[in-house]
Each structure stands twice: as C-alpha cells, then as structure tokens.
C-alpha cells in the first residue's frame, strides 16, 4: 500500500483525494492546507490526518508520495522539499511559473531518485486520447492545420490567485498549457510561437488569448484560451490533414444534458451538458503515477514534458508582451 499526503485542499486536492480512494494500492493518510477547515473536509472523508503546514506531511515517515495541489508559485519549494525527503512527488500543472524553477524541480527529483509527474491530465481525457489515436493511425493523413479552444468563465480560487498574472500567468499559463502539452505530444517540437492576448491589458477578471504555434513538422496550430465566455466550460479540437479532418466539440459531443426549469420564470433554465465516463481522467492519471512508483518506471508525462509545455506558455506570454514571435528553444 502506497501512502499519500496531499498538500493543498482546494478543488484539485479534494478531487485527487476522491480519485486515490478508487485506486487499489493507494491510500491518502494526510491532508494539509493553511485553511484547517478545508483540510479537515477532505481528510475526514478518508480518515486521514489533518495538518495546516505541508512540511509536517513531508516529514511523516509513512508517507511515500506527496501530491502538490497548491497554486503555481508554491510548487517549486514544496517539490524540492519532497524530493529532499526522498519521497515521490506528483505536482499539479503548470510545473512552475518560470523555466529555471521547473528545471531545478526536475533536477532535484532526478538527483533524489524519486518519481516526478506533473498533472497534464488532458492526455487521459478519453476524447483527447482518442484524437491522438486517430492522428497516429493516419486517419487524417499528414496533419496540417490544428485548432483548439478551451473556454470558461474566469476561475475562482484561493485569494483570487487566478487573477494575479505574476502568480497564475492567466489563461495562457494556467489553462491552455493543457493544450500546449497535448499538441506537443501529438505533433512534436515547436519552431516558433506568436500570440495576442489580454494578459497585460489591465482589464479585471477577464483573460483571452489566441496563440499561433508553428511546429518543426510544419503543422500550424491555433490555440484559443478564454476566461471571457459567459457560458459554461467547453473545449473544441479540429485536426485537418492531407487525407482527412476530424472535429470535436464538447458542447455537442455530450451524451447527457439536464435542463431544469428555472424556479422563478418557469421557462428553460441553464442546460448542463454532462460527459460521464466509468473512470475519470484524473483517476487514470493518478493510477498511472501510482503504478509508475509501484513498478519503478518513468511516468508517461515526464518533468521534461511539463517543462516544454511551460516553455510554450511562457513564449506565448512573452509574445503577447512584446508583439514579436518567439523562436524555440527558449532554453
């Protein structure tokens, strides 16, 4: 049985705890959050111990794996501490706020000989892994132009940290880094990146970016990230190749929709599309990490992958700032 400590009991920490409970051979034994109530809420479901300081979890002898579900700027110091304690570490995406920090985290884990995986969970989403399989099978021939959209309202989090560019890096660094990792997984290394966005516009609680990526393979990708859409969360993906094209839209490829009459008017209220699957992508992701630790194998999503996804996001932000395309590699 691998024993897990979760640091950070926000949305992701709570969800990860639920996921671990479904994985044989894994058990959450400790949850830490500066907000004691939040830690307790998560810990109590699984009879885990509660802490207000993550360091206390890292210091526990019986913890094998530490799961870092903290805001991005706190990733580095915690991963370094976990590695120094000789424990395996799973860390939410993005790996860090800058490339240097990301490199240090990878180096520290390598040096300590511990497993390190970053939560680029998109690779475990059924629709995205199916898309990757279609591309690899040659269904669309040689890919040419790829379009992705990831749109939501502005996220709410601890101290509204998502709204703080220095901390979260906006929609580019926090959200469409998912798509950057997916695209790099499918189409290889990047040649250059150009982007426009609202990251430095000073407009509060809105972010929006349109990113152009040219891959070394020739593929041109258009990545849209929005915290400006009033509707609920949705994603789209289109891959056009010289032998075919596929498109996916979460708003239409949904097997279940629940529409409720709104209580006051009696007319149609909000329709919530649902996409139930037997095992959540988050559980699949964490199950893989647990297996990697148990079998002493390198995880599918490496620290290097996470660093390269971060590189694309930072290039996009830099391009938004300067108005110039960014040539790769940045480091």
């Amino acid at each position, binding site marked *: 049985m691998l024993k897990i400590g979760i640091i950070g009991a926000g949305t992701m920490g709570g969800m990860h705890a639920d996921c671990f409970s479904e994985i044989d051979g894994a058990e959450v034994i400790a949850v830490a959050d500066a907000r004691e109530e939040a830690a307790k809420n998560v810990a109590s479901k699984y009879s885990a111990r509660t802490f207000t300081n993550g360091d206390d979890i890292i210091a526990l002898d019986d913890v094998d794996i530490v799961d870092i579900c903290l805001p991005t700027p706190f990733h580095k110091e915690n991963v370094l501490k976990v590695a120094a304690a000789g424990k395996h570490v799973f860390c939410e995406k993005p790996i860090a706020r800058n490339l240097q920090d990301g490199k240090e985290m990878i180096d520290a884990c390598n040096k300590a000989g511990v497993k390190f995986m970053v939560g680029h969970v998109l690779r475990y989403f059924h629709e995205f892994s199916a898309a990757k399989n279609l591309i690899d099978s040659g269904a669309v021939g040689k890919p*040419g*132009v790829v379009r992705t959209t990831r749109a939501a309202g502005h996220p709410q989090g601890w101290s509204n940290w998502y709204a703080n560019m220095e901390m979260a890096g906006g929609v580019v660094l926090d959200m469409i880094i998912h798509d950057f990792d997916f695209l790099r997984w499918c189409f290889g290394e990047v040649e250059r990146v150009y982007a*426009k966005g609202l990251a430095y516009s000073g*407009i509060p609680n809105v972010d*929006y970016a*349109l990113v152009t990526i040219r891959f070394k393979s020739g593929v041109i990708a258009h990545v*849209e990230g929005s915290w400006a859409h009033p509707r609920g969360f949705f994603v789209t993906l289109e891959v056009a190749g*010289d032998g*075919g*094209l596929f498109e996916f839209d979460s708003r239409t490829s949904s097997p279940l929709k629940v529409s409720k009459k709104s209580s006051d008017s009696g007319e149609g209220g909000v329709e919530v599309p649902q996409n139930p699957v037997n095992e959540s992508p988050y559980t699949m992701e964490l199950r893989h990490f647990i297996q990697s630790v148990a079998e002493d194998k390198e995880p599918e999503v490496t620290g290097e992958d996470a660093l390269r996804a971060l590189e694309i996001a930072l290039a996009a932000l830099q391009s938004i700032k300067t108005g110039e395309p960014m040539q790769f590699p940045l480091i």
Partner: protein
Amino acid sequence: MKIGMISFAHMHASSYAACLNELDGVEIAGIYNENKNVGQSLTQKFGGKFYSNYNDLLAESPDAVIICSANSDHKEHVIAAAKAGCKHILCEKPISTNIEDAKEMIDQCDENGAKLGIAFPCRYIPAVMEARKSLEENAIGKILAAKTTNHGTMPGGWFVQKEKSGGGAVMDHTPHVVDLLRWFMDSDPVEVYAESGTLFYDMDIDDAGLLTIQFDNGVFATLDTSWSRTKSFPTWGDVTMELIGMEGVISIDAFAQDIDLYSDINVKASWEYWGDNMDSGLIKDFITSVEDPDKNFPITGEDGLKALEVAIAAYKSAEVNKPVKIS
C-alpha cells in the same frame, strides 16, 4: 437596365448572373468570356449576346459591368471599363493581386467618373447583418478580440496558379473576413503576423494560412484562411466569427443554416444550405446604386484595397516570420 458581364473565370459570376435575371427591368446585355464555347453557352443560359472581345461589349455602353475574371485580369478589365465610360463597375474580390494595381484601378475609376464596387457578398448574409446591428446596439460592450475563419476546399484551376491568382489560400480567403471586421468595427488593420504553407496538396502555392491581425482600435483578430476542408467534408467551407466583448460574446457561423443530409448517392454526409442567398442582396444593392444616382454602392475600391493589404502583408510576414506593419 443593361448589364455587361466581363468574364466568368470566377465561379461567382454564374450566381451573380442568376441574381440579375431575378430583378425586374434588368437584363444581361452581353457576356464576355475568355473561352468562346463556355461564353456562348452562358449567353444561352443567362441571356445577352456573346462577345469574344470585351471592348466590343463595353462599346455598347452597358449601364454597369460586373467583372469576374481571374484576379490578375481585374486591373485590365476594370480600367478598360472605366475608360470606355462605364459609370458602375462591380469587381470580384480580391480587387487585384498587388497594391499598385489596386491603387491604379481606384485612381483610373476616379479620373473617369466611374464608381468602383467590390463584391463582398458576406455583408449581405442576414446573420452577419444582425450581428452588426447587435454590435451597434452595444450588445457585448467594447470589442476586445475576434477569432475568425474562412475555411475552404482547394478550388484548383487558376486559383492555384500564382500568376493568375496572386496567391493561394491566404489571397483567396483573407479579404472577406477582413472586410467584415472593418465593417463591424469601423477600424483598419495596422499589423499582420501570419504562418502559411503548403500542407494539404502537392503544389507550388499556399493552401494553409493563419493570420493574426491588429486593428487600430486595439482589437486583435485571428483568421484561418486554410483550404483545409477535405473532399469528404460535408460542405465547401465556412465563414465563422467569434467576437469577444467586455460584456459578452457574439458567434457567427454564417452558413450554419443547413440540413444534415446522409444520402447513399454521395456516400458521405452533406450540409444542405437553406439560408438566404447572399449574392442576391449584393446584386440588388449594386443595381439600386446604378438606378439611383443618390445611392452609392457601399463597398468601394478602397474597401477592396484595405482587404488586399492584409493578404499582401500576410505573405510578407510568413516569409520573414515577423509581424508586418500596414502603413
């Protein structure tokens, strides 16, 4: 009213001719076409006399001419019409293949008292007109950004011969949406970045383009011009625009008024369009401007030039991998 049609090289000409024939008091007086056999069968279909020399057609002093020749022939035909004394000229987009020619066309029309209009029929799509009205009513507040596409199918023919078309997918599919964005925002493009390439077909012209356009009102927009719709795709392409505003979002999928058809005759799905014909709105407006001297056709040579400038800047940007300013 007598209309002369100079060339059916661009397939839109047939649609314009059909629209003309639906209007009372309007007749197609003559058709010039490069290919005589095709031209003669066109006169049988749409009426009028066939001319193997467009100057002979212009000598008959039609009230207006519609020019749908290959892009690189627009200049010759427009200037000939203006010099022949034709007062109303409607030219297919793009206005020309280069900026110098476009400026000369505009100047020559001005000097000869001819009104030059450019065929941007997308302005006449009801959903597009409604969207513009919503913007005028400030439905989504200040516009911040736009994500647009004008995808297509590879058209072949002279469209993929650079000396005739001036360029591939970027030249073909930049003008429409740039014109709509300018029309929506009353703002001009100032800088363009583009990635372009030949990613779908084995040929010597671009079939993929992704532009990022900065407007002088601060709005940035992307435009995907790619001929990325495959033979198996249910329709020819699209015009989509998503406008991101401070208070909301407007999404246009201009040809979404369709029925999904699954017919064993084609053994593929197809989207059968049932929306209004945008060309008929365009042609009606053009004819109104010919009839009524107080009514100017709203889409000018200058509008054509502004849209062309973006395509030209995009090619330059794709070559140097840098943003290119539009002066």
